[in-house]
């Protein structure tokens, strides 16, 4: 009984993790500009990794593998947002201005 519940939770986590990765991938391809695309990609890094690794940890149970996966999860949760931050700040510094709503509206009017 307990095993089945853990199995179900883990599969829910794995599936929703896969869903977030998919959404992130679609977003990174389809969204209009750099910052929005980066936002989509960082969904993959945080939510996707958290859910998928969490699901795998539940599958592994109380073993050494689970501790290793936890360490990987901790490092990824530290490094991926940092990488996203570094990317965004590099883009800002190199002069890529985020589009504001006013600019988007003007673009719509011009068309």
């Amino acid at each position, binding site marked *: 009984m307990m095993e089945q519940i853990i199995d179900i939770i883990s599969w829910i986590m794995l599936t929703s993790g896969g869903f977030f990765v998919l959404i992130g991938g679609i977003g990174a391809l389809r969204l209009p500009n750099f910052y929005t695309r980066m936002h989509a990609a960082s969904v993959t890094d945080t939510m996707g990794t958290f859910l998928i690794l969490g699901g795998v940890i539940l599958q592994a149970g109380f073993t050494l593998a689970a501790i290793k996966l936890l360490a990987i999860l901790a*490092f990824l949760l*530290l*490094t991926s947002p*940092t990488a996203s*931050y*570094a990317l965004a*700040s590099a883009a800002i510094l190199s002069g890529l201005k985020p589009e504001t709503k006013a600019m988007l509206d003007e673009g719509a009017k011009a068309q």
Partner: protein
Amino acid sequence: MIIIFAVFLLTLLVITAIGIVRAENLFVAVMLTSIFSLIMAANFFILDAADVALTEAAIGAGVTTVIFLGALSLTAEREKKVDVSRGLAICVVVATALVLIYATFDKPRLGDPEAPVHQHVAPWYLSETETLIGIPNVVTAVLGSYRAYDTLGEVFVVLAACIGVLFLFSARREKKNDNTLNSLTSPKSIGLQHHFIPRVVGRILLPFIILFGLYVQFHGEYGPGGGFQAGAILATGIILFALLEGEQRALAAIPSRALLWMVAGGAMLYSLVGVVGLLLGGNFLDYSVLSTDPVFGQQIGIILIELGVGITVCGALLSIFHAFAARENY
């Protein structure tokens, strides 16, 4: 299942390679090279070559990317347009590829135990390592002891490469002194200090990277790893420190003179182990004579030469990195 992964990774590898060739922005090409190395490392890993995968990930995806970026900051970001017809080049490439593909038809199936390479000395290594050297990782035994000459040669190749790079880059050393005065505020000396988040995260990660490097160094006899991998991982950690806190602080921690001593000293340590073996009455690089118990002698020898390899690789990579970074002021 593994074969699906392998085919998937190899397909990605081909796509990345085409991307590298087609990229005109060199920055993009460098990033793709890094991705190529990472895929390659995953590929090595599913082929059960964990030692090679570690090296590829640390050196290919880590250190070389930083060194390429250092080189890019000295040159232009875009590839120079060349209007030469590429017909001949494409013909040569296609012909070579066809010959290589033809050659693969003679290759034994992947992982075939009857393949000649698995029938030659490999069974002897696998069966005798336990009694002769007494360590579980046969790869380390082959690299450190059975094939110690080859590894010595590799270490001296690293040494020679480092000397070559330093020769090329220190050609205009005397100009450097003029720039040191105003370099206190240059990006080179402050690094990413105004970026709060990367600094804090880097500071958290750095001890773990160094610890992992030392683990790979001293655990090489039991798990995947050894001097080459450890040297690369340690160098990556210190390069991360240099990128975050500024090159000056990294140089203050390990001055370039000390790096030169590391490069030469590691290679010297390796050869000294061989010479000591000679003096104790054995052959060059025969570690059995280092102790009264031949098996223990082998283990001492392997640990010492791995230490030499690690010190040389770490010193060489850091020297090359600093050589590139020091040029940016010109």
